[in-house]
């Protein structure tokens, strides 16, 4: 924040430091091991009295001198220059903290140069003993140089006690110091062997050549296991959080972690091959290949070490962005006014892309190039738009800590997201495209209020069933809605009838073959563990059938239904026909209609890429599903994408328990993982925090301009959105997670940690609830069935269990379910959306001729054949005006 940022694009993302540092480390380690190689080989040559070997050594020494002093020394300076322009603040911190360490290292380096020059130029000039002694001092000084730098480099990953004591020695002899010294020394010896191959192959004298090759082989083969074991030691001394990151959580490290031992094995095997009598030409090729593999080994180790530090340059002190947490606090305060070298200080609609560019330079470019070879931001964001990028920024550094948190205000976050999407990925700003929805025509059966002996009221239990509609990839819920019906025998004192009467349900034309356009039945065996006939639900129901008579209620639980009519298009509101007949005579007693809403409208593509699957309006596409599974696999070590690709998709609720009526399958061990609702809300809350009810519409079919418009009840019309009952995303997630945490599920605490409640002062004040069985209680706001205050909120008071749910409750006489008169959850009367009033208010439209609560406006005559007066029979406050 105090320094300018070198605004590279393709060569951002640490390109320069990676290239320069890896090459320097390669040569610098050779400079150490090669020193020992020189004196050991010279000793052998002198012992054998081998002139060809001494001659070779002289040439090798010149090569060594040129490579280490010209490239090694200058690239070392190059690292200094590079880090000072890429991370000036961290560089200054390392310089001041370890200035005497650096100065000490310089003295060794200076000594190295002096004695190496003497060693080379004195090859034929000094006596053997002195020459060897000079060589020994070279190695000693080179090793001391490595020893010193090692302490400072290790400090960056594991500062140990230094942050508390600020003591030089605590930082220098940090936890990784000794394993690192051993590892680096072994690496130095291995590289000496590799370079020995490269130069020894040019020895004309065969005996000498083979002798030196065998010696070089011994260096590599001996060093390889030390490198492997010290690697284990190194990882073993890492702080638990870092170790966990290296071994499990970092997807970036995984391939390097695998490469490290593989390369060691290849190097050892290749070295053994070089010591055999293969043709010289082949061995020369092999020697070059081994040098490249050696470079790869250095790269793998250094990349693991650098990646393990993420998101820090100096662990716990300075982020990769060269910003200190203490500088940045509070993280959500505007960033640009605090950045000394920001040209734009305040985001406006006119400068948002420019502001985004500046934010990108200061907070992203250190790790993410634009179109370059290192962590090209396009590879991570090209599949999503600004809203998706914004969500990622919101969640950055919260659950997965390899990146620092975004620093800045919501406006700055949006500007950065817009810059990434529009400025870098060339996408156009998102323009809302409202779904084309027309009022549905419902042929309501006639009702003669004066003469009709029966009244049949149908309703669905959930208001809408939400599925993903990507059953070839995964399933969130099985396709099926539950219709229920109450048959009322009209009278002075009406009676609910279930005896000797059957109630049949019949899907509308075009909805009798949901398997035509849903893949669920193709994959039922892996999704829900059993093969199903097409168009038959997990509960054994078909689109047409007979309801089961229960306690004063008919029910058909799990009728297979889809929002996709057979002939094409989308209709989330299929209207079923319910017919009550005398069981004995078959006489039709009453007919009504009932809507069985079903939706696949999930906007997962916002963050996971892809788009809607059907007509650009609904359904999770295969591309989107692939992106989702990739994230799940990456973060949880699963193989869901592979299984889906092989034709064996799984249902989320097959592992994550769900008490949803549409679960269709249960996990073997419900206590093993978070419930589906807690997992999904808990995970996404970190990315969608700070939003309002619109956040819900990312996953639920509640967008007012969507094809479903499921949030259509009278609350919605009064401006009461999701959050007034369920809480904001953070509150909602916390309530679910708190329940899981109390149930002993470990992941709950991890998901809860980044969330700050908005409906309560602290997490402790959030009341836990079980998904699906504990929901907001209507009577929290509607105390004694009265009209609540304008700002009433139902959040935090949950039904005790499923019996208390609105969809399961009945009025005071115990005859009529609440939903029969008031409508289904989230569709309570008067319900309205783009599909019109008829389809959303069928009972009242059929029996009263206008939308509303059945029996409202003193229409007791819907059931009662005489005028009713007095008393709040069904529930208190019934007679309010």
């Amino acid at each position: 924040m105090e320094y300018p940022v070198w605004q590279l694009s393709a060569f951002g993302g640490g390109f320069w430091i990676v290239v320069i540092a890896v090459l320097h480390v390669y040569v610098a380690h050779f400079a150490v091991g090669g020193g020992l190689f020189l004196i050991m080989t010279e000793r052998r040559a002198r012992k054998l009295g081998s002139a060809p070997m001494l001659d070779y050594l002289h040439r090798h020494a010149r090569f060594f001198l040129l490579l280490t002093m010209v490239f090694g020394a200058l690239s070392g300076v190059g690292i200094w220059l590079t880090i000072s322009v890429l991370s000036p603040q961290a560089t200054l911190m390392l310089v001041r903290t370890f200035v005497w360490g650096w100065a000490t290292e310089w003295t060794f380096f200076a000594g190295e140069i002096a004695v190496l020059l003497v060693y080379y130029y004195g090859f034929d000039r000094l006596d053997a003993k002195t020459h060897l002694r000079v060589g020994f001092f070279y190695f000693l000084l080179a090793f001391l140089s490595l020893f010193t730098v090692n302490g400072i480099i290790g400090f960056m990953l594991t500062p140990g006690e230094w942050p508390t004591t600020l003591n030089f020695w605590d930082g220098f002899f940090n936890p990784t110091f000794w394993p690192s010294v051993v590892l680096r020394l072994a690496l130095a010896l291995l590289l000496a062997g590799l370079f020995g191959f490269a130069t020894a192959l040019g020895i004309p004298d065969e005996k000498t050549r083979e002798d030196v090759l065998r010696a070089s082989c011994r260096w590599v083969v001996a060093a390889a296991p030390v490198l492997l074991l010290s690697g284990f030691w190194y990882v073993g001394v890492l702080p638990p959080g870092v170790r966990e990151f290296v071994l499990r959580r970092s997807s970036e490290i995984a391939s390097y972690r695998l490469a490290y031992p593989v390369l060691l094995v290849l190097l050892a095997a290749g070295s053994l091959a070089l010591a055999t009598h293969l043709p010289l030409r082949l061995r020369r090729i092999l020697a070059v290949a081994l040098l490249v593999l050696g470079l790869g080994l250095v790269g793998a180790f250094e990349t693991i070490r650098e990646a393990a530090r993420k998101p820090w340059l100096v662990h716990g002190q300075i982020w990769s962005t060269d910003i200190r947490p203490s500088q940045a606090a509070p993280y959500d305060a505007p960033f640009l006014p605090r950045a000394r070298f920001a040209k734009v200080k305040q985001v406006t609609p006119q400068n948002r892309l420019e502001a985004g560019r500046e934010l990108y330079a200061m907070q992203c470019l250190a790790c993410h190039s634009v179109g370059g070879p290192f962590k090209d931001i396009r590879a991570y964001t090209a599949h999503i738009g600004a809203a998706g990028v914004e969500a990622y920024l919101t969640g950055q550094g919260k659950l997965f800590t390899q990146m620092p948190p975004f620093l800045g205000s919501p406006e700055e976050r949006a500007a950065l997201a817009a810059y990434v999407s529009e400025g870098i990925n060339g996408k156009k700003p998102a323009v809302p495209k409202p779904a084309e929805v027309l009022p549905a025509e419902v042929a309501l059966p006639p009702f003669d209020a004066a003469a009709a002996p029966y009244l049949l009221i149908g309703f669905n239990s959930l208001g809408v069933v939400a599925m993903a509609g990507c059953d070839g990839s995964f399933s969130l819920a099985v396709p099926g809605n539950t219709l229920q019906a109450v048959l009322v025998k009209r009278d002075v004192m009406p009676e609910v009838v279930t005896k000797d009467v059957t109630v049949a349900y019949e899907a509308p034309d075009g909805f009798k073959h949901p398997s035509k356009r849903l893949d669920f039945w193709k994959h039922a065996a892996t999704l829900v563990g059993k093969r199903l006939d097409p168009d038959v639900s997990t509960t054994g129901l078909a689109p047409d059938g007979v309801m089961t008579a229960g306690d004063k209620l008919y029910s058909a639980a799990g009728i297979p239904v889809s929002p996709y009519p057979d002939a094409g298009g989308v209709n989330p509101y299929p209207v079923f026909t319910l017919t009550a007949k005398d069981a004995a005579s078959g006489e039709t007693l009453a007919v009504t209609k009932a809507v069985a809403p079903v939706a696949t409208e999930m906007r997962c593509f916002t963050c996971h890429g892809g788009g809607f699957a059907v007509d650009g309006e609904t359904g999770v596409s295969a591309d989107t599903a692939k992106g989702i599974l990739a994230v799940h696999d990456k973060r949880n070590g699963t193989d869901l994408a592979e299984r889906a690709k092989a034709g064996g998709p799984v249902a989320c609720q097959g592992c994550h328990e769900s008490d949803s009526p549409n679960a269709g399958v249960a996990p073997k061990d419900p206590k093993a993982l978070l419930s589906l609702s807690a997992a999904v809300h808990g995970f996404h809350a970190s990315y969608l925090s700070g939003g309002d009810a619109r956040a819900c519409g990312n996953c639920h079919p509640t967008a007012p301009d969507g094809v479903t418009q499921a949030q259509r009840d009278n609350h919605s019309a009064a401006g009461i959105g999701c959050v007034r009952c369920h809480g904001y995303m953070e509150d909602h997630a916390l309530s679910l997670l708190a329940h899981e945490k109390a149930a002993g599920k470990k992941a709950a605490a991890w998901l809860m940690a980044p969330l700050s409640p908005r409906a309560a002062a602290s997490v402790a004040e959030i009341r836990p609830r079980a998904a699906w069985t504990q929901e907001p209680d209507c009577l929290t706001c509607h105390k004694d069935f009265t009209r609540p205050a304008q700002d009433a909120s139902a959040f935090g008071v949950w039904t005790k269990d499923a019996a208390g749910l609105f969809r399961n409750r009945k009025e005071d006489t115990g005859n009529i379910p609440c939903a029969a008169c008031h409508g289904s959850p989230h569709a309570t009367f008067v319900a309205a959306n783009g599909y019109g009033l008829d389809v959303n208010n069928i009972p009242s439209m059929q029996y009263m001729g206008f939308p509303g609560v059945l029996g409202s406006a003193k229409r007791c005559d819907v059931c009662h054949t005489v005028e009713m007066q007095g008393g709040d029979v069904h529930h208190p406050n019934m007679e309010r005006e």
Partner: protein
Amino acid sequence: MHPPVSPAPGLALPSPWGIFEVLLLVTFAAHLLAVNVALGGTLIALLTPGRDRGAALSLGGKLPTTVAIAVNLAIPPLLFASVLYGQYLYSAAVLTAATWLSLFMVVMIAYALLYYAQPRLALAASRPAVLAAACLLLAASLILVNVSTLAVRPAAWMAYFDNPGGTVLNFADATFLPRWLHFVTASLAVAGLFLAVISRKAAAAGDAAGLARKRLGLAWFTRATMVQFLVGLWFLFSLPREVHFAFLGGDGLATAALLVGVLLAGAALVQGVQGRVGPAAWFAVASVAAMVAVRELVRLLTLAPAYSPAALPTLPQYGPFFMFLAAFAGSAAVAVWAVGCFRRRAGRGA
């Protein structure tokens, strides 16, 4: 635009600032002498290789080692300057990152070219390599002058807003050209003197070629030093008014330092004109040391009053300092011993 002094952990000095200042002056003077020989020597070997290319051979044989020493001696002053002026130096480096980062590559190639040319110096065919090396070393000097002038002129940092790609060039700075010429001229003078020094024994032994090299070296030294008086004046008056006034009596220490530096240079010149190589060399080294102090005073005065390294927070810990002293003594002892072995053998005619 002045970076504030941050109290964050790791930014306090581990020793009093004066220790770093002294070490900066000493090591920078040593570095400067080596760099002067490397650059000036390359230019002299290129421009006046001498009869039978004697000067080129004599200088060129030592140039790779001189570059190695110069690079090595660059590290401590860079380190100590970073400790004291890091926020200025690094800000300037970022502004001109592309050139700053290319510095080591430029020097590396020059170094490699000098090694390449070393065994070929007797032949005119080595000229292209030496020419390329000279150009690269001159480029390196321009890069360093660019960063150095930017580092003391925060006002010039505004250029970043129009050029954030790391290619800000500070050519518009009034001190840029005289400062660079001051350095190049000094390089020619010191390298000339160096040629004279290394030819002194041969000349004294009556070797005509050695005498010619000595004369050539002294000619470069004396003429460049004469020119330097003019360039130096230009440089002095290009400095901001309050700074050059400080050196003209406004500040006692600054004025005295400059006066000492100029007098020493004058003494070196007189000795050089008289052909007395040894005294000329001692006066020249002393003059360079004095001018390094002048340079440091220029930096302090330019940054004042917004910044002074004396105001940096200090959290002293002397153990590491003693480690440095011990390592320095040990490494120096080894180096002296090794070089001594080498020279003794040479003395025996081996």
